[in-house]
């Protein structure tokens, strides 16, 4: 399963949405679901294994937060589209200047 596929599950997506609002403990997260607490923990483990979520110990509890790393992947991926169009538009501009020169 790839990171993206980990998000195909609606409960995991909801967990990510909740963490987007701020860090939360497992108990806090579980309160938002009908699923059992171990069920939520299982989802959290999947998210952690895929680098989407991080956990840290705070006293006796574990606090979960989003890991922004996968974002960079999306960023890179979109940047390639941006580069493609920026290059093409540069060429379009060159073409326009060329036409202009020719007409003079």
């Amino acid at each position, binding site marked *: 399963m790839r990171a993206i596929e980990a998000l195909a599950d609606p409960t995991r997506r909801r967990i990510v949405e909740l963490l987007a609002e701020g860090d939360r403990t497992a108990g806090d997260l579980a309160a938002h679901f009908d699923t059992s607490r171990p069920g939520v923990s299982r989802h959290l483990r999947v998210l952690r294994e895929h680098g989407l979520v991080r956990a840290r110990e705070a006293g006796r509890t574990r606090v979960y937060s989003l890991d922004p790393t996968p974002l960079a992947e999306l960023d890179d991926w*979109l940047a390639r589209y941006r580069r493609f169009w920026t290059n093409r538009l540069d060429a379009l501009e060159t073409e326009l200047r060329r036409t202009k020169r020719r007409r003079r």
Partner: protein
Amino acid sequence: MSEPGRCEVRITRRLPAKREEVWAALTDPEAMSRWLDPCCETGFAEGAEVELRGRDGEPVTARVRELQPGRLLELDWETGGDVSVVRFELSGAGDETTLVLDHRRIDARVGMAYAAAWERAVKRLLGSVER
């Protein structure tokens, strides 16, 4: 982001030419072969289908969806079985034309775009770039 899992890239350019000149360069096959892709043999006209190479050299079929001469050109951008939409919009009068290029409905693949935090970041990424 307009739809879950779909992204958008938007670029705004001010071009030193009249609107009809920009339109001609955008749609004329000979000009297109210089700025868009050397393989362009067909221009962008009503109902036209242009075969070209995309971002990573992959084959793209660009199909004209909407065409308003001197104003708007919208294409279906089909590659690898996925269809996104590319739109060129021209505005302005006189010797300068503003071109807004909007490539939308790009499949985010990365389903992470579903998530709110990512969505916020994506929005930041996708803001139009003025040059």
